[in-house]
């Protein structure tokens, strides 16, 4: 055995291991390739499960062709671009100048004008592709938003309509309290604007990618047999472009779809208003109690999944395993209805914010839109009138100040003295 100078036997002990690790660690990972957009692996698996599995070689070809089409249409994370779209003022959706500010590596010039804002502020959670699968995502609850479906929670538009520019601006400026989504109020307006354009770009890119995957599995676009030459033909480009136009049109039109909020009734937030809201909360039409629970602590139904998780088929373990084994998604979590007594509402606590949440629902997370009366319907219509929504808002806003120690139907467990 080798010996040191003092004649002691030479052994590789913890000191040596620690020292070697210290010296070797900085050398690891020095070579980092340029970031690329990731293919929507989760949706590919979803479509394979639904439409039939592909051969490994076909899957590889499909993925490669899809990637080439997407790069041709949308560019790369360092150089994003969008083709000219007929009939749409694309500059309103994704201004190339603003995309250039938000995209690419982080830098700034001598005047402090920044570049790479998305990578500086968003990519570590939302991912370079906007898939909500950034490196930090596993630790965050809720998971960061996956933009690629074009679904957003806190917005003024109904149903699955995309958010307006102001909706995105509101979330970015105020942040989402109680979550990892920060407020970017210290950034200037142009910087926030650039980020909004880039988020929209990623969302539209993701929606188009999903559509192309779907068309491929439905046979309308052959991405398995296609070659680089056939994909570069004008027909292919036109097909992709028409899909971009279709998605972009929805985003342009959404600016006019914000739900109009009527003025609140004169007795808004009076005792009578709150009492009316309470009865609606427990009533069968609004039926808020079902998920938010009788105490409004968010302890009602909690076994459902949001739209992003549903795509992973979480109730079928074998299918879910396919997504997780291929690293296509994070472990799905069930929805947690909001504890309304916290006085914290993630989409904003202004009356108008709550009105929008009640009127439009939070579709993606399972909160349904209110069942509203149609125009001209009489009082005999059991569905909700705008004033009813305001009363519900009043009740929800009163909940944090409602003494939980004296709930409506409190049962006394203390025996009365004889």
């Amino acid at each position: 055995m080798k010996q040191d100078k003092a004649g002691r036997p030479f052994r590789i002990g913890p000191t040596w291991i620690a020292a070697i690790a210290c010296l070797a660690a900085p050398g690891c990972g020095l070579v980092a390739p340029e970031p690329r957009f990731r293919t929507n692996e989760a949706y590919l698996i979803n479509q394979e499960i639904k439409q039939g599995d592909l051969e490994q070689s076909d899957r590889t070809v499909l993925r490669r062709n899809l990637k080439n089409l997407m790069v041709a249409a949308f560019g790369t994370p360092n150089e994003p671009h969008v083709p000219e779209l007929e009939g749409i003022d694309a500059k309103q959706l994704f201004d190339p100048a603003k995309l250039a500010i938000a995209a690419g590596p982080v830098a700034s010039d001598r005047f402090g004008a920044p570049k790479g804002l998305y990578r500086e502020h968003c990519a570590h959670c939302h991912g370079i592709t906007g898939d909500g699968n950034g490196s930090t995502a596993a630790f965050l609850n809720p998971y960061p938003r996956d933009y690629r479906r074009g679904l957003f929670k806190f917005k003024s538009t109904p149903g699955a309509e995309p958010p307006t520019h102001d909706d995105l601006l509101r979330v970015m400026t105020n942040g989402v309290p109680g979550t990892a989504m920060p407020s970017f109020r210290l950034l200037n307006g142009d910087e926030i604007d650039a980020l909004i354009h880039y988020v929209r770009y990623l969302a539209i890119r993701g929606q188009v990618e999903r559509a192309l995957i779907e068309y491929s599995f439905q046979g309308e676009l052959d991405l398995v047999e296609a070659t680089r030459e056939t994909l570069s033909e004008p027909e292919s480009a036109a097909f992709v472009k028409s899909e971009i136009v279709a998605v972009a049109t929805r985003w342009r039109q959404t600016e006019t779809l914000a739900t109009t909020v009527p003025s609140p009734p004169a007795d808004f937030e009076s005792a009578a208003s709150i009492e009316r809201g309470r009865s609606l909360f427990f009533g069968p039409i609004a039926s808020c109690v079902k998920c938010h629970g009788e105490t409004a602590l968010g302890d009602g139904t909690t076994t459902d999944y949001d739209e992003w998780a549903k795509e992973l088929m979480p109730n079928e373990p074998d299918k879910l395993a396919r997504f997780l084994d291929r690293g296509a998604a994070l472990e799905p979590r069930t929805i947690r209805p909001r504890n309304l007594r916290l006085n914290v509402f993630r989409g904003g606590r202004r009356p108008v914010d709550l009105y929008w949440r009640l009127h439009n629902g939070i579709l993606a997370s399972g909160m349904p839109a209110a069942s509203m009366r149609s125009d001209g319907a009489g009082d005999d219509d059991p569905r909700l009138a705008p004033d009813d929504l305001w009363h519900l808002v009043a009740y929800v806003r009163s909940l944090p100040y409602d003494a939980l120690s004296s709930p409506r139907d409190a049962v006394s467990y203390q025996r009365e003295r004889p």
Partner: protein
Amino acid sequence: MIETRPRSRADAIPPQGDGSWPRSRSAWPARLSACVVAATFPLIWVGGLVTTYDAGMAVEDWPGTYGYNLFLYPWTTWWAGPFDLFIEHGHRLLGALVGVLTIGLAAVTFACDPRASARGAAVGALVLVCLQGGLGGLRVLLDARALAMAHGCVGPAFLAYAVAMSVHLVPSRARTGSCESGRSGAGRVPLTGPAPERAPLKTAALATAFVYLQLILGAYIRHIPVDASVNAFRFAVLFHLALAVVVFAYALALAWSLRRARSGLRLLAASLGAATVAQPGLGAAVWVVKYGWPFGLSETYAIAGSTIVANSFWQAMTVTAHVAIGSAILGISTAITAVLARRSGWGAAAVVEPWTVVGGAAR
């Protein structure tokens, strides 16, 4: 009496006829070395601030600043300019100061300290500071985040090296003097003394190694590639947490074992204990200001409404303080290790003065 063979000819300068030595070692290398340490710590702090604000590319050229020589960049533009530019250019200036001090240290060491080990250490410091400057420059020229990580790892390593070198260069009591005259100094706290038990030295060395590994992990987490996988970050964070427990245990054990040491060492141990106790709290605070409250705490009434503010002052300060305190822990544990090593006779010929080893004449 300690019998130790001199390591080099320079170490073995013989006494004069009357038993005195021709000149004693100067305190200037140690003083300059202390200056290097004192300048390096704020440099690491500012470097942490550069990473926190993602300002590494605020100046796109190197070694100049927007076409100017580094030292000639108009200070009014620097002070009144964008904050990113302010901290990046400030970091470069501070780095240059450390570089100049290290050059000075090497020159003074060669002039005043005949020991080969001291001269070798000075050259090593020069090489390390050049490597660090080069890494910083390449990080800018190649815009490579991975190089920024390496730059962030070598910085604390240089601090540790400078600290160890400072301990090495401190002359023992009653034998200090100016470089030229050989006058004796007095009243210094001795760093040499009876050899302590081996256990604290081993604990100190291991604690230092673990702290450095912990800093590397921290640097990886801060510079993680933008397209890194979920598992890469998860592994790094969990490893960082596990290692934090190990570092905590080792550092506190070390501090405790030195509670009855001499005052200088005891002060270092107390500082190590304090910094080690503060650091996990800072780490938790970093998580909260960056990613919010973990473990469902955000559902509790007191903090449910908390909103993270990106790039806020407190976010930047908390994150940067965690980085800086980490480096401070490394520096302190390195100092303790070096002092203990010196006292225990590691590399004795390089440490113990010639007049203390040859026949004991000088004593």
